[in-house]
């Protein structure tokens, strides 16, 4: 039993995420999902762009947003995207410890991003900018909150995979899961690039 276990882990193929039909199907299906997510976020971006000046007498984008805080959030998410790449590279070297370490850093950064976002939303509510205060408010919280929901799902997903990894180790069954989770995390960061540009930076420009 333990003998066969050792053998599978040392003879892990170069790209374990694509070694099985199941792994290749996960890879393909996940990219189809990401293509669909692109359109879903586009509808939220379109709505936000259309409604961002309908403030109903409440605070405007220029009055609300603070660039330093958004910059910190952006750097946090960018670094976490890099650490999830490093996790997958560790996986390709058959280094489970490295994979767990870099995914752990990714999860920590994900939680700090969420903490910052919650602080930001609480601050906005104090300024009278809520989900129901204006069309701008509804569009803003739907778009940014939906992205925050993706971040929350991402950190919980990676955390569960890490716990499973302690038990199951790195095999051709678990490798596609790590690979797909890291794709998801990159996509979440990709969406944030457009949020900080379209929502925050363009909101400051006017």
């Amino acid at each position, binding site marked *: 039993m333990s003998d066969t276990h050792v053998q599978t882990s040392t003879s892990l193929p170069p790209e374990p995420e694509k070694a099985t039909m199941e792994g290749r199907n996960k890879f393909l299906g996940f990219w189809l999902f990401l*293509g669909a997510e*692109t*359109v879903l976020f*586009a509808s939220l971006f379109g709505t936000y762009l*259309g409604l961002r000046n309908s403030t109903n007498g409440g605070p405007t984008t220029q009055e609300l947003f603070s660039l330093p805080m958004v910059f910190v959030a952006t750097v946090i998410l*960018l670094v976490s*995207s890099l650490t999830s790449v490093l996790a997958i590279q560790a996986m390709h070297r058959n280094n489970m410890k490295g994979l767990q370490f870099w995914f752990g850093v990714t999860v920590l950064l994900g939680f700090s991003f969420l903490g910052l976002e919650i602080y930001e939303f609480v601050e906005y509510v104090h300024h009278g900018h809520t989900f129901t205060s204006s069309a701008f408010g509804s569009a803003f919280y739907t778009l940014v909150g939906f992205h925050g929901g993706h971040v929350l799902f991402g950190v919980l997903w990676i955390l569960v995979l890490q716990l499973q990894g302690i038990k199951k180790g790195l095999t051709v069954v678990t490798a596609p899961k790590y690979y797909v989770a890291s794709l998801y995390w*990159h996509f979440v960061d990709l969406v944030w690039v457009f949020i900080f540009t*379209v929502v925050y930076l363009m909101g400051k*420009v006017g």
Partner: protein
Amino acid sequence: METNLQTEMEHSPQSRRETAHHNEGPKPHLWAFFLSIVFTILAFAAVASEAVSTAFTIPFIIFLAVVQAAFQLFIWMHMNQKDHEFPLTFMMSGVFAAVVTVAGIILMIWW
């Protein structure tokens, strides 16, 4: 001789793994990260400074965002590698529908 053979056997899976992944070193990823940080700083600086005109800033920061998105997709998500024809098709269709969606919704609201 015998020990030689043994070391070679021990090392062969590792070296094969490395040949299959010679394009998988951390270098392109670290470069993409460095450039993404630079582009992020540029975008924030363009907005924070009063000297740059609004008419220039908005196309400029959107251009920077598109380049950063390309880094994510093609380098970090490996879309530049082979066996990625389907991901490319899915994402291109997604981006096409996304552009039509954004343009359509904005025109509907503003007209």
